[in-house]
């Protein structure tokens, strides 16, 4: 079987100009003719020599940190921007969904927007007419079809937008994180639709930060890092590669993250045992403490660090914030180096790999540090002898049983 997409040595570079506005003014261009430019420019590779093949019917999840080149790759595949070098051979109609509701106009009614958006996405008018009822039905906004879109709630706009996109029937569908929005019920509906699309034999390329979605939807994964393919293969394997192992962190230099306001720095949190020693492996049944090391560059009134454990499927097992603990007494102000520990109930987690999220809010509960913008951290809990038999579920729970 011939691949439906052959991506061959694709690179995309931008020239970054220092000391210059992001877009040019005519004066800049005119003056630079007469005097040698003082600004230095630097070649930046958003994508660097990417090659892979996609076969018909495959669903591929593309993951990577912010800035790894995922969106650039999708833009090139969608023909929005040309590659700087390399080529892609495509043997099917590609439709891309880099945003839901592209071209939606607030002044037009729901009905009009279905037609406008559908045709921008590449559907023929007859196609839209034929599927119109289904689209409306899927979106659930039939009551407001003739109301201008600006009076819709954002949720309704989103549902309508996804409904149109869901009825696209290209051979290759390119999707960028459109599922990150909307309420849980609607997300479920969308995932269902996407699974249906992928089961119907169409090819899907899917970029997302939602590990669970990638794992459910995609059999194959591609991990991009700094514009290069870091790993490619079975999606669960690639997802594992994506997350930094806790075990590995201390081997690297522990990373510090500065808050958006610049007032606080947080070292990447780590686990310690009862004696205060850092631990690098986690066996089922061990109970450890998570340590946050803050440096306050100026006096701060309060701070609210938090952490969460997310299962491989993207399910949030629990979240713990400092201010959930009513016993905790926050000092008047914090300054300098401050260590905050939290004991979380690790023994209740069944052996598996989890993702750990970290963040910190300030006293007004604004997020000032979101560690997961910088890295994904995984926690692998190994099996111990006690629960040799496989467990089903996320929580380790054995009830007490008796015959009465």
């Amino acid at each position, binding site marked *: 079987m011939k691949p439906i997409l052959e991506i061959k040595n694709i690179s995309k570079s931008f020239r970054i100009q220092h000391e210059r506005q992001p877009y040019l003014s005519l004066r800049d261009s005119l003056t630079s003719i007469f005097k040698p430019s003082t600004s230095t420019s630097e070649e930046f590779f958003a994508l660097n020599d990417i090659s892979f093949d996609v076969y018909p019917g495959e669903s591929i999840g593309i993951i990577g940190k912010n800035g790894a080149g995922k969106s650039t790759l999708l833009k090139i595949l*969608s023909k929005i921007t040309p590659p700087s*070098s390399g080529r892609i051979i495509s*043997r099917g109609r590609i439709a891309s969904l880099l945003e839901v509701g592209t*071209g939606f106009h607030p*002044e037009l009614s729901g009905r*009009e927007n279905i037609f*406008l958006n559908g045709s*921008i996405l590449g559907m023929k008018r007859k196609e839209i007419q034929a599927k119109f009822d289904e689209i409306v039905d899927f979106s659930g906004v039939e009551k407001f079809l003739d109301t201008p879109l600006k009076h819709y709630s954002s949720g309704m706009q989103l549902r309508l937008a996804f409904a149109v996109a869901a009825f696209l029937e290209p051979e290759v569908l390119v999707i960028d994180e459109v599922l990150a929005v909307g309420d849980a019920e609607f997300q479920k509906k969308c995932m269902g639709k996407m699974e249906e699309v992928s089961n119907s034999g169409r090819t899907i390329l899917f970029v997302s930060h939602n590990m669970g979605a990638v794992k459910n939807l995609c059999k194959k994964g591609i991990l991009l890092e700094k514009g290069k393919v870091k790993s490619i293969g079975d999606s669960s394997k690639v997802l594992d590669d994506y997350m930094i192992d806790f075990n590995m962190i201390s081997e690297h230099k522990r990373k510090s993250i500065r808050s958006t306001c610049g007032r606080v720095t947080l070292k990447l949190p780590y686990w310690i045992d009862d004696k205060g020693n850092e631990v690098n492996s986690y066996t089922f049944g061990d109970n450890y403490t998570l340590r946050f090391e803050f440096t306050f560059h100026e006096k701060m009134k309060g701070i609210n660090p938090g952490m969460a454990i997310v299962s491989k499927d993207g399910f949030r097992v629990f979240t713990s914030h400092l201010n959930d603990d009513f016993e905790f007494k926050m000092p008047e102000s914090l300054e300098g180096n401050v260590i905050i520990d939290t004991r979380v109930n690790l023994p209740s987690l069944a052996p598996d790999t989890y993702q750990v999220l970290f963040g910190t809010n300030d006293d007004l509960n604004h997020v000032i540090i979101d560690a997961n913008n910088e890295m994904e951290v995984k926690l692998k809990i190994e099996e111990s002898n006690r629960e040799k038999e496989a467990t089903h579920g996320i929580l380790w729970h054995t009830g007490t049983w008796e015959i009465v």
Partner: protein
Amino acid sequence: MEYEIKPKSKLTLGLNELWHYRELFYFFTWRDIKVKYKQTVLGFAWAVLQPLAMTLLLSISLGKIISNAGGITIPYPLFAMSGLIIWNIFASGLSSAGNSMVSNANIIKKIYFPRLIIPISSVLVSFFDFLMAFVVFIGMLIYYHTSILIGEFLIFLPMSVLVACIATFGLGSLLAALNIKYRDFRYIIPFLIQAMFFITPVIYPINVISNPLMRYLFAINPMYAPLELFKHPIIKNHLDMNLIMVSLFSSIVFFIFGLFYFRKTESYFADLA
């Protein structure tokens, strides 16, 4: 169907692709027309009211002076209206086409379709406005019992509108491509339109310019020919074919240059928008 995505190499018009996406012309034009008059009380009447109000103001203020200086034999309101409705194809078309890439940046960055559709649709919107105003203009002809050279009118009318659209599109697509790279053009466009209004025989006849060399300079303006052609059967003046040819040539040059500059730069619009 097999095709390749690769760095831009050769310059083509991409007519096949435009044909493939032909329905988008309809949808973009339809959207712009709808949106233009949405939430207005008077709706489509605005397409007519603007040239009408301008005609009224001109007739009150400069009408007499221009009629005397140019030897206009028909009622001045008719003269002004005939110029203004053709001029408005250019003025409103150029303004919306020139800004079209920037104002549709959100779409350009998210989806691919032949970019030419957008400025062409902008010109189609102003053509639609022309049709509305033209109906009123016919009404005015009847009201003033003005006799026209009907044969010439039927030939020159489509010619003049076509040339006006071609000139508008040529300059509009050039400005659209420049505007997305150099945002200065956002300020240049309104000024350009206003400046051209004064050097185009819209509200005055060309014979107020007595210097023959000067007339040639005026004729380099691509809008010169459409205006003269449209007005000729109504005012029954002498039509200087040399000047018309100069202007036609100029609009074709603008058309080709604008089209090619646009095609040459369009693949990078999404990076610049």
